[in-house]
């Protein structure tokens, strides 16, 4: 039963993630894309943590923690790149 609920929650998260990915692909401005990818990264952290509970392997939480770190750094780095190099900032 618990397994089933976890699978359902993971499926719901996957639907949300695919919608975020769609916004990242459509996004009129580059900031829309960065915002969507940031939110998608947070959902990925949750998804990885959930997978760890589904597979009964608590080591997955370490991956989730590192993914959270990398996600924040990626967002800030991409923003820095956009501001410094003026990469396609206009729609």
């Amino acid at each position, binding site marked *: *039963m*618990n397994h089933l*609920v*976890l699978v*359902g*929650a993971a499926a*719901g*998260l996957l*639907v*949300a*993630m695919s*919608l*975020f990915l*769609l*916004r990242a692909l459509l996004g*009129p*401005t580059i*900031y*829309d894309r*960065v*915002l*969507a990818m*940031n*939110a998608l990264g*947070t*959902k990925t*952290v*949750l998804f990885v*943590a*959930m997978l*760890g*509970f589904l597979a009964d392997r*608590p080591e997955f*939480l*370490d991956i*989730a*923690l590192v993914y*959270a*770190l990398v*996600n*924040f750094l990626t*967002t*800030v780095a991409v*923003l820095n790149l*956009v*501001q410094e190099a003026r990469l396609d*900032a206009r729609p």
Partner: protein
Amino acid sequence: MTVAELISWVLLALGCFVALTAAVGIHRMPDFFSRIHPAGKTDTLAQMLILLALAVQAGFSPPSLKLLLISVFLLLTSPSSTHAIAQAAHLEGLEPWTKPPQEPPADTREEAAQR
């Protein structure tokens, strides 16, 4: 089915619901600055609810501590990265969306409908 499992299921369902509202909101809002609202705010709430649900399942154990660590870290970084994105867009000179011009008055619209 224990009480802890029940609590965790309710929290999981709430977290998924919040994540889905964020995903729908980011498509329905008209421009970038309004899209920050669903994406940025619900981010923290969804992660807190889902990680808390998993921590309830794990009980009082090292995985629980790791989940708490992830939650606190996301609580710190998620709003600050959202703020950084908003500030970058503002500095770049992105114009916020405003209400489009009013539609013509009712009487002219009725005439158009009759035609």
